[in-house]
């Protein structure tokens, strides 16, 4: 247990080091989730609208469709 606490303390600078890694994780994961959700939302709405346009060409954004 003491070994773990000493590791987390990082020579007295743990607060700075873990805050930097937490900020990086928050930004990188946040961008990933928001970008992916934005893509899925657009693709789903596009599919929904295309069903209202029978003559429209299918989307080229989904895999395997042109």
């Amino acid at each position, binding site marked *: 247990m003491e070994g773990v606490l000493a590791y987390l303390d990082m020579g007295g600078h743990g607060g700075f080091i873990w805050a930097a890694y937490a900020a990086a994780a928050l*930004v990188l994961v946040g961008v990933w989730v928001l*970008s992916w959700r934005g893509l899925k939302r657009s693709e789903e709405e596009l599919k929904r609208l295309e069903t209202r346009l029978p003559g429209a060409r299918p989307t080229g954004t989904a895999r395997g469709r042109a």
Partner: protein
Amino acid sequence: MMHRFANPARFARFAAAATPWTAALTALLFAAGLFLALFASPPDYQQGETVRIMYVHVPSAWMAMFAYVVVAAGSASALVWRHPLGDVVARAASPVGALFTLLALITGSLWGKPMWGAWWVWDARLTSVLVLLFLYMGHIALLNAFDDPARGGRAAAILALAGIVNLPIIKFSVDWWNTLHQPASISRFARPAIDPAILTPLLVMAAAYFAYFVTMLLVRVRAELAEAKLRAARSAVLARG
């Protein structure tokens, strides 16, 4: 290559097929990079454990500048050659680059406080990176400032190209002016001034950030292409009543 992917539908198919591979590579590189950065690498002889902040700070700063090069290249290809994907790539890369820049500033501040005794100093390196963040914010604001996306894209592209002058200022600021910031430790023309035990995790984390950026670019370009189709479909639905 540029001509091969000039067709947006073809690029979207390529991006959809490539995304799982680049995502898997990103996860692998981050797993290896974080293990090396947090467990396998030694503390620095001068900076102690705080050197571990470098493994998230330096790749953020490198990718902040690289993403800006991508934005400027996309803008140039849209303005000069009217490449159909140029504007889309610039739109997709800009917010990711802005967040890399913000991350470089936050992690730099968290490294600066224990090493310099200050969260922030108005020196050339820090100020020029802050200017980069403002350039990104201006670019994103211009992209969304017009009802017609093409007009916004043109104005934003001109700003992106004008702002490219800031990149050499960031790079050489530590050589041109007196600064608290350390000079470049890795150069193409000289042996790195970093011990391999510290250089290896840095390069693996940089590769992870690069793979992450490529993955985000592919996802966001697909989203931009879907959004453009969505606008056209909405107009068609409205025209039909």
